[in-house]
């Protein structure tokens, strides 16, 4: 497990910024968070079909910033592609090749039933069967937010994933609609 720090400093309201402000450790800030966001950083996030022709990656980052500014310390962000990484500064930093959701779910199982878990993804996992098998071991819900065009095969998978764990599924036709989904979870 590794973590990534932003060269441009922490996002306002991110765990590291809140920890710094309150003079506490990142772990302590994390323990007060509500939502664990696991965001897909696979290559398909580079699709330029998002707001004003921007990459999904850029718009998702913009939305994550807004959420954390509005709800400081409420969101712990992890990015996944080939592996999973903690992003204490609040936004993901890199694009990977694979969509290893199975590995990501195995990792965030540590937060199962303790935090609201939200998977934000735009594509299909490398191994749907394995990812679903891990998801079924969760005691608490996994909520999903689909980013992409309506009717995409990935959307069906994320719906199934949420249903299998008793989670809610949100749809963001564009990443710019990511915020309402996370805010709905924060509001309970």
């Amino acid at each position, binding site marked *: *497990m*590794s*973590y990534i*720090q932003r060269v441009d400093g922490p996002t306002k309201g991110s765990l*590291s910024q809140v*920890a*710094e402000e309150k*003079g*506490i*450790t*990142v*772990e*302590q800030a*994390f*323990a007060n*968070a509500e939502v*664990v966001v696991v965001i897909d950083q696979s290559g398909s996030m580079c699709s330029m079909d998002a707001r004003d022709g921007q990459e999904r990656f850029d718009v998702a980052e913009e939305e994550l910033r807004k959420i954390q500014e509005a709800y400081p310390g409420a969101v*712990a962000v*992890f990015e996944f592609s080939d592996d999973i990484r*903690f992003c*204490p500064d609040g936004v993901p930093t890199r694009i990977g090749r694979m969509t290893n959701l199975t590995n990501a779910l195995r*990792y*965030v199982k*540590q*937060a199962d039933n*303790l*935090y609201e878990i939200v998977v934000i993804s735009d594509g299909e996992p490398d191994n749907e069967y394995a990812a679903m098998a891990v998801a079924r071991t969760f005691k608490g819900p996994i909520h999903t937010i689909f980013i992409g065009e309506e009717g995409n095969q990935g959307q069906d998978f994320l719906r199934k994933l949420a249903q299998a764990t008793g989670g809610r599924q949100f749809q963001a036709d564009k990443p710019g609609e990511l915020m309402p989904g996370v805010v709905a979870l924060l509001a309970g």
Partner: protein
Amino acid sequence: MSRGTRTANLWTEDGELVLQSVYDVGFIMALKLVVPSYARQWDAPNKVWRVRPQYKPDILKALKDYGYIYHDAANGAQATMQVEVDVIRLNYLGNARRRASGEVTASGMNERGEWVYSFPLSALQDWFGVKTDPTQASTYYEMLGVNERATLAEIKKGYRNGAKLWHPDANSDPGAAEVFILITEAYEVLANDRKRARYDAAKRMVGSAPRTKKAALADVVWPVPDRYRCGYVKVEGEWLFGRTKLAVSRILGWDDIINTSGQRLTARWTVAGGNGHVDYDWV
């Protein structure tokens, strides 16, 4: 800048190092940095420093750094530590502070108003049953001095020990209140199953994430509770410099100073006009 040639003499006398040099402010400052106050004494009549022998390498280095050529007339005899058990009347115990030498000690005053006792942090920690300094701890467990598998009873005990030391009612030092807030927060999380599980998960998932740890509270690292500012203290330690200084190694007992009316002596450090002094009350 040339320093010229200066000579210092260093020899051993009655198990103590004796250092004689010309007056040099820079060197004296260096000496005070490398040798803690309880381990050195200025012998005014003889115009020499008397120092515990284990600091000889540090003194030699300081001499070299300041351009001295020293004449080592030491007889090679090593002083052996002679630990004694004694009951001392402690009229005031200051907060434990990080000294220039890096050591953390609290100074104690005798009934004649002389600062003759030195309590290392480890002795205070052992006596109070609080093994860690919460301001330096990076986890809630460390703040309460318990391990990560601690039972609820152990967590409560760790919190009680800390509260005895740092509760604002027991300790009027402003730094103590801040420490008490830290340990209370740690207790509230660890004593609650769900909060503890969330914290444990966060700790595991964060892994080696950067820490933004709270800064240490100035140089006071162990504010002594008011209750323990004075008393009859049974200690184990070593008397130095002709029994004029006592380096405490262990606290064995602590009794209040009671007068014939059954009142207990309390002491408080008061600063007035830039100078500090101890105020006493019988309560």
